[in-house]
């Protein structure tokens, strides 16, 4: 006797290859892009200063630090993890670079490059500590990165003695405050990071592995994906991109503040989640993150231009995150049915 089991009807909701990707991207991001456009239109009517080249550049530059850190964060969240330490890494990378560069002549190219290299090394090390703890020590990402959030911030305060450092070589400040063909460099830096992140996530074997690990860790492991290596690397990438954000921030301000980027991790996670990356793992995109951080940037900017009490800004950010998570949950539930 063979036992029979009812067969589930095969749904035929499909398209093909790249077109399928574009289709899911627009169906996932369509509402978000629409929201971004709608808010921009409303703001341009409400305040004449919104739709000006200088203000829009300003929005992007203000978003760039969050955006750059969010590129690495997207990788982590797609694996189903989380990195809370990014804000602290931004600060420590800038601060250690500042320490190394102090006393160098302000126009020395080499000094600035050394500063950037040191900042990246800081990001790499913190990322590796996070990654090693999550994989080989099998600790929970939330707790591990909460610990590094605290200790890395503490290190920043300790090495700086709580004092702001300023006056860096031009080559270091270039990333934050330089300009190419009239366009400020942070805009290019952010675009470059997003393009890189998108290519790695979509077109490399590593990117495929990131999605598989987040979608079903055990299935990925049994299918031969080196799960631990993948998890380790996403935290390293997150640390590195936070360090790049740290360089951009320090360069823009031409100074390293011990309290820099305090609470940045929440805005980074908000941008990623608003952009449609699922905290449960397995789903997400770099393009979505870009739209997500821009949306949050535009809302912040609009509130400032409208003269809204800055204390409400955070409240409204919270509401936006809540709405995004709710929408994500609802669409997931619809998928299950």
């Amino acid at each position, binding site marked *: *006797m*063979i*036992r*029979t*089991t*009812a*067969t*589930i*009807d*095969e*749904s*035929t*909701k*499909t*398209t*093909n*290859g*790249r077109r*399928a990707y574009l289709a899911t991207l627009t169906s996932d991001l369509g509402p978000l892009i629409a929201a971004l456009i709608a808010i921009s239109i409303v703001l341009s009517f409400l305040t004449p200063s919104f739709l000006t080249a200088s203000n829009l550049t300003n929005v992007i530059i203000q978003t760039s630090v969050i955006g750059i850190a969010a590129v690495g964060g997207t990788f982590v969240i797609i694996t189903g993890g989380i990195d809370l330490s990014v804000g602290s890494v931004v600060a420590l990378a800038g601060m250690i670079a500042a320490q190394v560069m102090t006393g160098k002549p302000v126009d020395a190219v080499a000094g600035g490059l050394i500063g950037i290299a040191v900042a990246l090394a800081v990001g790499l090390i913190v990322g590796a500590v996070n990654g090693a703890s999550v994989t080989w020590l099998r600790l929970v990402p939330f707790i591990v990165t909460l610990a590094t959030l605290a200790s890395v911030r503490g290190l920043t305060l300790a090495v700086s003695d709580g004092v702001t450092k300023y006056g860096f070589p031009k080559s270091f400040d270039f990333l934050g405050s330089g300009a190419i063909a009239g366009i400020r460099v942070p805009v290019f830096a952010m675009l470059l990071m997003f393009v890189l992140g998108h290519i790695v996530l979509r*077109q*490399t*074997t*590593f*990117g*495929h*592995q990131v*999605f*598989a690990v987040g*979608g*079903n860790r*055990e*299935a*990925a*492991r*049994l*299918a*031969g*994906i*080196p799960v631990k290596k993948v998890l380790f690397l996403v935290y390293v990438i997150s640390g590195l991109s936070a360090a790049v954000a740290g360089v951009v921030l320090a360069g823009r301000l031409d100074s390293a503040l011990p309290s820099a980027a305090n609470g940045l991790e929440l805005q980074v996670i908000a941008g990623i989640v608003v952009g449609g990356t699922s905290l449960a793992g*397995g*789903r997400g995109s770099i393009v979505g993150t870009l739209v997500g951080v821009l949306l949050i940037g535009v809302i912040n900017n609009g509130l400032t231009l409208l003269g809204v009490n800055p204390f409400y800004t955070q409240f409204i950010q919270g509401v936006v995150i809540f709405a995004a998570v709710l929408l994500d949950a609802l669409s997931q539930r619809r*998928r299950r049915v």
Partner: protein
Amino acid sequence: MNSGQVMAVEGDVLLEMRGIEKSFPGVKALRGVDLQVPAGHVLGLVGENGAGKSTLMKVLSGAYDADKGVILVEGKELPAGTSAAISAGIAVIYQELSLVNDMSVMENLFLGRVPSKAGFLRRGLARDRAREALSEVGLAAVDPDTRVGDLPLNKRQLVELAKALVRDARILVMDEPTAALQSQDVENLYKVVKALKKRNLAIVLISHHLEEVFELADSAVVMRDGSAVASRPIADWDEAAMVRAMVDRDLDDFFPWKEREIGEIVLEVSGLVSAPLVRDASLVVRAGEIVGVGGIAGAGRTDFLKAISAAESYSAGQVRVGGSARKLKSPTDALANGVIYVPEDRKLEGLVMEASISENIALSNLRRISRWGFVNAAKKKALANAAVKRFGVRTTSIGQMAGTLSGGNQQKVILGRATASHPRIILLDEPTRGIDVGAKAEIYGHMITMAREGAAIVMVSSELPELLGMSDRVVVMFRGRTVADLPRDQATSEIVTHWATTGMGLES
């Protein structure tokens, strides 16, 4: 169907089930089952996987509503629902224990029903009753305040029994109580069950281990295909008769097996030990050969396959792939050496359900379709199309989400992924579980093709017809050990079942 035959029983009938029927979509799980259990009596309930034992007990516990039939406890009809069953004194101890590991033994015993007065817990009273129940199950030495998670597995099972006693259970159902136990613990459990019997409990013992049934039961009922096919006092049974009653059926020509050319030895496993379930397992497989691994649930078959593919670690023994004694380090390493494990649970372990067919097929083959770390989209598509075509996955596009496919098509996607990596050794765990008949036949055909192409296949199966119908050889596991290695012509259902349930051969 002679289940209605009158059985001479002593004592008052505490539990009676009459004409129980239960259907699920497409399957009639119970076809009118009758049974009676007097007080102070142990009833052994035996039968193959899928015979309906567990369904019957779920009806008894109120977890399922019967479509037809009545349950009488002391002659009174039992209303539907689990809480009615609990207040009638019915306790079911499932294989997967339901203890809360982070709570103390005492808290578990009284879970949700701690004795209290005016809203205050009466800890002293609770502790006394806990001690009493624990000593009755041979755990007098266990402090009621111990955290359950700190107890070894064998003792947790006894805690579960004590929990039933604390609730004044009079009808006790034990589902495979010794499946995870070592032999000295089995002896201990026997003692406890005998003591409970003296306390006039009515006990139903579901077991694949026939020696256990003969040791403990006063009578035994054999179930097959949803019916109680034979019910006799234990003295009127012997093991051979019981096995015959369990497997008596015609094997149809459902299986496309044919004599094949068998090559060199490609996989040699010896003395594998992987705690807790695999104790000493060995196996030899040749190129082009299909070796079936039989045994009952909990015999350690899945863990054996996982240990071979390095998905689980092993503490002793050797796995030689293609004559090389190098130890495989991980599933990734196993894949690179041509060994792939196809899991039983497609949803939890097999597929990324939210990803497309082509993404899923790419997973084990990323190196093949990429260069310098970049995936070649055209190759990825071609690979998926080839796998879909070869295995006949019914889909409109390789972009379809894996989670929306039927079970049979999901399994074909996994097989497509596995074969695309050109494995020398394929370890299939219950390859047709939950799959409809048509897709089953297709998967059998694919297994034969894969073997023809030279793959060595190891197949764990709980379905005897499949095990016997598809295997060139059948290896039987019993309590973590490989106890028999039978060529196809000697692997009959009676012989295999006998090995699987007793660990010994059938004397003829």
